[in-house]
């Protein structure tokens, strides 16, 4: 396959009368980390939810590994390897950490492979191992975010969608999470990262896109974007 792993074209999404995305184009090349940055209400979550099939686009297309997935049910999209750790973490607080992890592997039946991936996830997030039987609702915010990512890994993603993993977390925890995001990518998983924390996101990503009220206004190498004046002014607080 030569084209990008994920290719979004002219994606338009509306909530009733309100159009939240006005035809965006987005490519995620295999093996890369692409970050989509933008402020509140820009349409970042809407983009990810549409890719995952939770929302239907009113126009445009989403292609994954060369296949059009825009009409597929969410569980079919997960089966193809597009897996999301959603905004707000979306853990099941009434279930144990272990059960949450097991749900991540729902589409799979290769128990040996699941066990191996579970080990790999727990090696990335050792704090989860100590809390396997604890109810997920009693985890700290940072631990819940770790669980959300670890759980997504159990689906064996080819493309991992992360919606604001840094939300509401202390700086050290954010640093840990971003370090692990890089490790996951280094091990071969392509990542589309959505963030408001532009500085952090750009520092770990290869490519960055800036989303402003439903339109992609800038797109460049992440390092170049981090230096660009307009991005510094609008998203990096400054100078």
């Amino acid at each position, binding site marked *: 396959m030569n084209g990008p792993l994920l290719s979004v074209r002219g994606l338009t999404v509306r909530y009733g009368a309100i159009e939240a995305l006005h035809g965006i184009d987005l490519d995620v090349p295999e093996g890369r980390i692409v970050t989509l940055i933008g402020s509140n209400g820009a349409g970042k979550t809407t983009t990810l939810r549409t890719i*995952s*099939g*939770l929302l239907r686009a009113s126009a445009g297309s989403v292609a994954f590994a060369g296949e059009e997935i825009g009409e597929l*049910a*969410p*569980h079919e999209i*997960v*089966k193809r390897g597009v*897996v*999301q750790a*959603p905004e*707000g*973490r*979306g*853990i*099941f*607080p*009434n*279930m144990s950490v272990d*059960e949450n992890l*097991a*749900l*991540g592997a*729902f*589409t799979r039946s290769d128990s040996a492979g699941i066990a191996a991936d579970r080990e790999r996830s727990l090696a990335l997030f050792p704090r989860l191992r100590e809390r396997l039987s604890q109810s997920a*609702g009693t985890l700290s915010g940072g631990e819940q975010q770790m669980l959300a990512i670890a*759980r997504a890994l159990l*689906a064996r993603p080819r493309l991992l969608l992360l919606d604001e993993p840094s939300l509401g977390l202390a700086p050290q925890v954010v640093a840990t999470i971003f370090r692990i995001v890089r490790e996951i990518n280094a091990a071969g998983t392509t990542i589309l990262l959505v963030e408001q924390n532009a500085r952090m996101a750009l520092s770990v990503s290869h490519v960055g896109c800036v989303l402003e009220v439903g339109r992609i206004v800038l797109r460049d190498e992440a390092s170049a974007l981090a230096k660009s004046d307009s991005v510094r002014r609008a998203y990096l607080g400054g100078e």
Partner: protein
Amino acid sequence: MTKLLQTAMDAVAVGSLYALIALGYTMVYGVLKFINFAHSDIFVLGAWSSFAMAAALGWTKAGATPPLLGGFAILLASMAFCAAAGIAIERFAYRPLRGAPRLNVLITAIGVSLLLQNVGQLPFVFGTQPQRMPQLLPDRVLASVAGVDLRLVDLIGAGTAVALMLGLEALVFRTKLGRAMRAVSWDVKTAALMGIPVDRVVAFTFGLGSALAAAAGLLYAMKYPGLNQPAHATWVLLGLKAFVAAVVGGIGNIRGAMLGGLLIGAVELFGAAYFSPHLRDLYVFTLLILVLLYRPAGLLGRAAVEKV
């Protein structure tokens, strides 16, 4: 002593039937967040389809003796039939309304309930005459304690109800499918992101709840063989009490439905035996009001703060 023992046995028998029906209300509420008012009609369908099958086999004639396992065969058949009916109702009446305002779904449920009641009364379906259910389960007096007969049929009835509940508990809390049901019931969208086929899980939940209601229908008719016509008010009241059981236990909570059913059975039958048999409905609804006042989420409901 005699009275106490008799009442306790009846309370368990009736309470476990309420529990079986309440499970269907609570599971459907869990996955779709609406009250399936047609659920009590599935219970009636369970009782009446069992009767129709028994009649077709000639077991309702005077002096007929159904074979030893005939009752269980009918139990399984009517559970399967009602499961299919429940799945069809979800597919054609409720699924098109996924995402519609909840009031629309509620009104549709009432419509489905009226449809089932009226179709059931058609002359070529069950008709409008009461019938007498034959005893399909083996029966004899096993023992007499303090003048109370311990009957085999009561034991089988309560045993079946308890076995079904234990089976459900194992399914929901120990299997992958059960975990998927709990995930859907917590949050449909997140469940979908796990790769869970939500529509199929919802259909399965309807089928399962309907099968349990069917079992309750047959077991109820074993205990009270005078079968009222399908749209009779007594059925509605029974369904309503099972619904109360689900609310008392905490709607959406499976163990709550079991607890609620047994509690409602106990309150109703002990009240009837020791205060006045005319006020049995009053005891049930008083319990409901008290629970709603002091524990609005139900005894085992999601009352605790679960911040996500």
